[in-house]
């Protein structure tokens, strides 16, 4: 069993380039920041290293950080430009009974993260949900379709902070 600082030191020694830092200020457990294209390599290491053995991805969630600049659209509503979208990975080791949280941040204009589908199959539908709700592209995911919204939903990604609901969907009025 290791605490998050020890896991961070281990990772930092192994991947000095890909590990961007550790956030100890969060009100939860410390969060390790990771370079988006490297997340799969690091996930594999976390899963297979005998000292870590993170065999379970408890949850993968997308977050709109909304840290860009707000720009007025033609119709007077705010649109966020710049900033980041993030993906959080909550890992747990059933064998060693320790936990860790990973985070990758990716630019809002072109949000791309390497998929961890081949490391934990759990991430299949979780990544599809993050794609559906935030538009984060998971590279090398085998089946990146919308999972909750209809397949023909073309009004954007509902959980983004600057999302605007459409007036109509297939002839049905959407707003109240």
């Amino acid at each position, binding site marked *: 069993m290791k605490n998050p600082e020890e896991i961070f030191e281990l990772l930092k020694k192994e991947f000095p380039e890909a590990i961007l830092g550790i956030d100890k200020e969060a009100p939860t457990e410390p969060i390790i920041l990771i370079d988006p294209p490297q997340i799969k390599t690091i996930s594999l290491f976390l899963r297979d290293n005998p000292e870590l053995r993170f065999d379970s991805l408890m949850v993968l969630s997308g977050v709109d950080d909304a840290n860009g600049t707000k720009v007025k659209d033609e119709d007077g509503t705010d649109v966020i430009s710049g900033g980041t979208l993030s993906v959080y990975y909550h890992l747990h080791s059933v064998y060693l009974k320790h936990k860790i949280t990973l985070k990758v941040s990716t630019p809002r204009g072109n949000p791309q993260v390497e998929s961890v589908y081949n490391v934990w199959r759990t991430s299949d539908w979780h990544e599809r949900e993050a794609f559906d709700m935030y538009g984060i592209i998971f590279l090398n995911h085998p089946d990146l379709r919308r999972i*909750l*919204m*209809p397949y023909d939903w073309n009004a954007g990604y*509902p959980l983004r902070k600057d*999302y605007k*609901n459409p007036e109509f*969907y*297939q002839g*049905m*009025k*959407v*707003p*109240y």
Partner: protein
Amino acid sequence: MGLLDKEFSDGNVVIAKVDDLFNWARLSSVWQLGFGLACCAIEMMATSASHYDFDRFGVIPRNTPRQADAIIISGTVTLKMATRIKRLYEQIPDPKYIISMGSCANCGGPYWEHGYHVLKGIDRVIPVDVYVPGCPPRPEALLEGLLKLQEKIRNESLRKKTV
């Protein structure tokens, strides 16, 4: 064989209007489509169960719209589901009736403002006969809704559908 091949000893004849006969038959056997959406569906199932016994009003669930007379919209209707419900409705043969059960089906309920995925009232897609308020409505309320529907069917005419 049926009743008609027997001879009535005292020459019994029942005289009734066709409307009355048809309406009585229809309101006494409102077969509903076996269809549930959200928490209201749990109350609907409780209504069907032995304690409230929907069956005593002739309501039994059918598993295909082609054999159903009514559909109870029991729960939150998402936009994705609304297209399916419309198709189910179109597959029910006439005459067909809709009971909108609970706040979500009536008007969007708690999702009325921020529910990007919710249809704000099933009456935007298909015509509703009876609205049952509640979140979710108790089985008594759904029974009341059915009695209202029966009252509505009782006043129908073959010549012209009354409001």
